[in-house]
C-alpha cells in the first residue's frame, strides 16, 4: 500500500521512512567498479525508453539508437506487417555495422562490406556466393533485441530473455500512460546534452525540488516556487516497487513574464482545441527505473532519460511530445517557446550537476546526506543497490 505524504513539504510517510534516514554512500556516484556492476545488473537487463512510434510512421521506417553503456547500436524497424522490431545493428557475417543512417525508410538493409542483405524483419534475404558458406541463411538473421511499446514510447531490453514484459515492468503506470496525449504524439521538440557526471547524479537533480529556488531563480522561479511553498516541494510522493511518482505542486499565483503570458496564451487554446489541456495527470511526474521520467503537464509534456556512457559521463535526451503538426503560427510559437523555456532550466541544471560530480570525484566525501524531500533519490539508490546485490548473489550462485 502507498502511504502518500500530503501537501508540499509534509513529513515523509511510512514507505519513505522505510528507506532509512541515514546518509548514503558517495562511491556509487563516481567509482568505475560500481558502474561496471550497474551496467550488468541494471542497464543490460532493464527496459529502456529509446524512442517513440511517431518516428516509425510507416512500413519501412527505421531508426538507429546508440547505447554507449553496452557499446551497442540498435536498429528499430517497422515491418510491412506494422510490427515494430529491434535488432543489434550488426551484420551476421563478420560483424560490420549494418546501417549507418540514424533514420530513414528502407525495407532491406545491405551490409557495405560483402553485400549481405537483410529484410526489415531481420531475415537474411540474400548474400553473394552464399553456397561457399557452411551455414544456412535461416541461422543468419539479425540478432533480435526485445522491444515493446507503451503509450507510443518504444522500450528495448538487452536481456535476450527479459524476466518481465514491459507492461508488467511498468505496472500501474501502463493504465495511466495510455490515457495521455504522448500515446498519440506525432512529433516532438528535442534537445540532447552530454554531461561529465554520473547518470544517477544527473537523474537525481530532476528528482528533487530543493534546488529550484537557487538554480532557477529566473528561468523557473515564477511558477515553480511561491510564498506558500518557497522550495516548490511536490504535493506527494508515491512508490511502486522500483518506480516512483510525485504530484507537482500548482502555484496558485505564478509570476509569468509578458512573453510567457503571450506564449501560453497561444499554446493553451490550441491544446484545448485538440482536447489535450485537461486530463487527470496534468501535475503528474512518473519516474521509471532506472533512468526515465515523464511529466504530464499539458503545456510541457516531456520525457527525459539519462543514458550512462561511463561512471562519470552521461547523455540526457529531452523530448516534448506534441500531438499533430503545428496547426497555425500561434501553436508553432507556443511550442517553440515551451522548448526554449525548458532548455534554459535544464541548461542551468547541467552546469550545477557537473559541479557536483567534480566535487565527488576526489573521494573527499564518503557519504551524501539527503533530506526528507530528497526521498526519491534515496529510493533510486536503494533499488540500484538492491539490483547489484542480487546480481552479485546470482553470479556467486552461478560460479558455485
Amino acid at each position, binding site marked *: 500500500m502507498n502511504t502518500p505524504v500530503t501537501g508540499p513539504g509534509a513529513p515523509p510517510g511510512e514507505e519513505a521512512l522505510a528507506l532509512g534516514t541515514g546518509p548514503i554512500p558517495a562511491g556509487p556516484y563516481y567509482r568505475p567498479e560500481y558502474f561496471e556492476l550497474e551496467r550488468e545488473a541494471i542497464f543490460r537487463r532493464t527496459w529502456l525508453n529509446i524512442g517513440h512510434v511517431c518516428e516509425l510512421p510507416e512500413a519501412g521506417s527505421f531508426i538507429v539508437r546508440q547505447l554507449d553503456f553496452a557499446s551497442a547500436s540498435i536498429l528499430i524497424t517497422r515491418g510491412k506487417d506494422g510490427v515494430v522490431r529491434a535488432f543489434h545493428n550488426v551484420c551476421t557475417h563478420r560483424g560490420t555495422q549494418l546501417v549507418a543512417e540514424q533514420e530513414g525508410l528502407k525495407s532491406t538493409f545491405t551490409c557495405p562490406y560483402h553485400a549481405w542483405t537483410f529484410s526489415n524483419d531481420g531475415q537474411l534475404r540474400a548474400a553473394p556466393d552464399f553456397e561457399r558458406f557452411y551455414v544456412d541463411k535461416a541461422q543468419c538473421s539479425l540478432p533480435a533485441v526485445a522491444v515493446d511499446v507503451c503509450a507510443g514510447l518504444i522500450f528495448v531490453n538487452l536481456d535476450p530473455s527479459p524476466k518481465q514484459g514491459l507492461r508488467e515492468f511498468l505496472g500501474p503506470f501502463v493504465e495511466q500512460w495510455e490515457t495521455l496525449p504522448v500515446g498519440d504524439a506525432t512529433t516532438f*521538440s528535442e534537445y*540532447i546534452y552530454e554531461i561529465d557526471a554520473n547518470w544517477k547524479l544527473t537523474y537525481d537533480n530532476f528528482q528533487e525540488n530543493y534546488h529550484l529556488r537557487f538554480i532557477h531563480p*529566473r528561468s523557473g522561479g515564477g511558477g515553480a516556487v511561491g510564498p506558500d511553498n518557497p522550495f516548490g516541494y511536490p504535493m506527494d510522493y508515491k512508490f511502486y516497487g522500483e518506480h516512483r511518482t510525485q504530484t507537482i505542486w500548482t502555484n496558485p499565483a505564478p509570476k509569468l*513574464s509578458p512573453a510567457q503570458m503571450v506564449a501560453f496564451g497561444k499554446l493553451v487554446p490550441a491544446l484545448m482545441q485538440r482536447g489535450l489541456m485537461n486530463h487527470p495527470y496534468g501535475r503528474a511526474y512518473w519516474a521509471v527505473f532506472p533512468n526515465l521520467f515523464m511529466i504530464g503537464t499539458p503545456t510541457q509534456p516531456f520525457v527525459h532519460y539519462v543514458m550512462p556512457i561511463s561512471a562519470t559521463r552521461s547523455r540526457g535526451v529531452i523530448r516534448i511530445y506534441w500531438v499533430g503538426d503545428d496547426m497555425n*503560427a500561434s501553436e*508553432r510559437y507556443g511550442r*517553440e517557446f515551451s522548448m526554449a523555456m525548458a*532548455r534554459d532550466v535544464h541548461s542551468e541544471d547541467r552546469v550545477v550537476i557537473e559541479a557536483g560530480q567534480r566535487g565527488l570525484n576526489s573521494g573527499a566525501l564518503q557519504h551524501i546526506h539527503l533530506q526528507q524531500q530528497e526521498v526519491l533519490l534515496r529510493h533510486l539508490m536503494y533499488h540500484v543497490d538492491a539490483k547489484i546485490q542480487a546480481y552479485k548473489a546470482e553470479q556467486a550462485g552461478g560460479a558455485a
Partner: protein
Amino acid sequence: MSTQSSLLPAGFDALAPFVEYWAADTAAGRARCRDLSDEASRVAFYNAANELVPKALACLDKRPLDQLDESEQRLMRLVLSFAHVAMAVELQREEEPRHARYRPYMRITRAPADL
C-alpha cells in the same frame, strides 16, 4: 530601407532591420542567434518585436502554415526567434552572458517548426 521593408508583410516594417541576424531557419539556429548575441542587439530586437508579436501571430494565423509566402515565412521565423530572446531579456537579464556560455551544450536536434 525600402529593400528591407519588402522583406516582411505590411505593418511589420519596424522588424526589417532584424531579419538578417534573427530570422534563422531552424530552432537550433534561433537558439544560436540568442546565445551569440550581445545585450544591445537582444534588447533592440526585443523592444522592436515585443508589441508586434501578438499582431504578427494574428496576421500569420490567417493562413495555413504551408501557404505562407516568403515574407510571411520570414516574419514567422522572427517571431520564433523572439521566443528565445525573450527568455534572455525578460528573465535572465544580466545573468544571460553567464548562462549563454553553457546553453549550447543543450543541442536542439528537432522542433516541429523545422519539419
